[in-house]
């Protein structure tokens, strides 16, 4: 199965403000089917722009992007977006639509019959571990941040996409919720055979969830690989990013002795 990559960026560039801001600069990156890739970088590194290029929320200036083997510029962007799941920062739920309506929105756009959408919604609520009878008819403002993000994930999965793009999905959550949600998603990724690209500024989260990590800075791709491969990277910035989780792990080991092993 490890043949052509499911998503491929080849020498992709994107500028804003008439060329003054070079958001993405000659990036080449491939995501294999079934892979969980995390893109890590600070604000202004171009990681979110790169993600949006993949489902054409933004169009690239240079280079080629292929999704499922097709050049994204050769396909209708609306159809492209409907077959790629997208999880927005802090949910991006429609405030005037119920939980069920939010989850079922993409199937509805595709013309799926109402009854089929309803059963799909219940199935997805089970999948993201929200009580179907309790949450189906609620509105987004009646949910906690974690519940909103679970609905956001369910919405992204509704049209049975092969690919899910996630833009800092867990960034705004408290640590416990964030951990639980991360684990739950990772399990779904495996269970449904998804290919996931997740943006994060948190290297610890990337290491814990992703198979592979791509590091971006100032629009350029600095390094990519498994956590092990990254630690061998000679790049100073990558080393700096990895130092934080390492130091945290060491200090936590000291401060939180397990079973009196200290």
């Amino acid at each position, binding site marked *: 199965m490890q043949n052509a990559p499911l998503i491929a960026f080849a020498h992709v560039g994107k500028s804003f403000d008439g060329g003054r801001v070079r958001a993405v600069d000659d990036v080449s990156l491939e995501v294999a089917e079934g892979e969980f890739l995390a893109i890590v970088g600070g604000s202004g590194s171009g990681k979110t722009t790169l993600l949006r290029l993949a489902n054409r929320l933004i169009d690239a200036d240079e280079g080629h992007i292929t999704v499922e083997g097709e050049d994204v510029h050769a396909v209708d962007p609306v159809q492209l977006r409907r077959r790629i799941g997208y999880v927005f920062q802090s949910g*991006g739920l*429609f405030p*005037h639509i119920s939980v069920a309506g939010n989850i079922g929105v*993409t199937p509805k756009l595709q013309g799926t019959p109402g009854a089929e959408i309803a059963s799909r919604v219940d199935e997805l609520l089970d999948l993201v571990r929200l009580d179907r009878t309790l949450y189906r008819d609620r*509105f987004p403002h009646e949910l906690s941040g974690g519940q909103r993000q679970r609905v956001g994930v369910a919405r992204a999965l509704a049209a049975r996409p092969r690919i899910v793009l996630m833009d800092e999905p867990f960034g705004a959550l408290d640590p416990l919720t964030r951990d639980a949600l991360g684990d739950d998603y990772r399990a779904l990724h495996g269970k449904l055979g998804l290919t996931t690209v997740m943006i994060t500024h948190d290297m610890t989260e990337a290491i814990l969830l992703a198979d592979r990590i791509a590091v971006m800075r100032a629009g350029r791709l600095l390094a990519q690989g498994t956590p092990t491969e990254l630690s061998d990277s000679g790049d100073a910035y990558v080393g700096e990013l990895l130092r934080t989780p390492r130091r945290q792990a060491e200090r936590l080991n000291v401060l939180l002795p397990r079973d009196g092993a200290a």
Partner: protein
Amino acid sequence: MSFFSDPRWSEALAHLPDYLGNHVRVSVTALALGLAVSLPLAVAARNQPVMRGALLGLASIVQTVPGLALLALFYPLLLALAALSLAWFGFGFSAFGFLPAALYSMLPVLRNTITGLQAVDPAILEAAQGVGMTPRQSLFMVELPLALPVMMAGIRTAAVWVIGTATLSTPIGQTSLGNYIFAGLQTQNWVFVLFGCLAAAVLALAVDQLLALIETGIRSRRLLRAALGGIGIAALVAATLVPTMARSPSSYIVGAKTFAEQYVLSALIAQRLRAAGLSATSREGLGSNVIFEALVSNDIDVYVDYSGTLWANQFHRSEIKPREELLGELKATLAQQNVTLLGELGFENAYALVMPRKRADALGIHSIADLAPHARTMSMAADYEFFSRPEWASLQKAYGLSFRAQRQMQPDFMYAAVASGEVDVIAGYTSDGLIAKYDLVVLDDSKHAIPPYDAIVLLAPKRAGDQALRDALQPLLGKIDIATMREANLRAAGGDGASSPDAVARWLWEKIGKR
């Protein structure tokens, strides 16, 4: 007799189904047109900063223009539109009575729709795009629903404005609750003025509260509440429109301009038609230019105009001819437009120079020629338009008049001012009852500098061959002399139960019917 047992209340109430029905119809039409124009405009402008800025700027400018001024600005446009539609579709002026109100309704809707759409969180817009919505789907499924509460608030404002502004459509030929107000102001019938204001205010409040129900229903997603508001609005519209629709379409419509004499004469004509077994309704408070257009386009069937007014204002003739010659020529000109000049009522309502009888006698002034040598030491007052009218130019030329001071005044106050000596001479109206009341004298215009203003009865083109109508009106022709009309006008200005146009018209018929 208490305030509320005044018979004018029941008279006002009798007009309510007609006036209210028309008012609601104008308001609904105006609001619908306003929405139909401003909603697509606002949607089109939402992503175009330049167009958005221009629209909002224009909106705020028009909002600062007072309603009456807007109406005045609109007037030439309305006249042109009426002429066009008469030529193309065969119906005229009153079809456009709702336009100024529609313009007013556009502004809050435009502003609130643009504001509401702009206030939608960009993250939500991106999410709409991200889940695979087309721009159109994003607009209808996300942007408009989210902007709806703000838009509804705009529609509420618009509805209240329209109901208020619709009272101003009376002078351009559209019956509305404004008929009470304009008629009341002209005949000093304060019961009517109060009734009209109250009715418009109650209607505005009711509509506002029902729309508020819809707005809060939408905002809090309580659909029952919103539906209740919607049903209320529909019921209100239906209840006010049914009596208007049910009215017999075959009745004669008698027009009247915006002053007391006209109200009395139109009431008189309507009474005569009813006495002859014909059904008749009045359409009152029509502007001087509008009323003739309305007659030509068969919107009204009959009204009383003045020969000099038509001569100068309608046909733009500046030369001043002797009475018979002018009438003959006018009759021929009117016939070209298929309008019938049925005949003269017998009195003139012309401009005339007027001063207190005692003072005139003391100075030996009987005519304008006698006045001329004294003028340099005297002050003169007239209504707002007199000094810019051809009559004044003609007077100055004929008699070499030049006063020490010229003042403009509300016509109602002029007579008292000249009677009290505050001014020496006024340009009054020959048929005004106050001339008798204040013992004033009309100065003789021996050089015929002021054109004749005979009161004449005009019939609409479609009534040209209507013998029943002619027979019903024949007894009025030549019967109303100037003294009788002055007394009738004085009665109409009485400000009590016996001063309503209907009551004065009955008195007038008593007086002239046996002649």
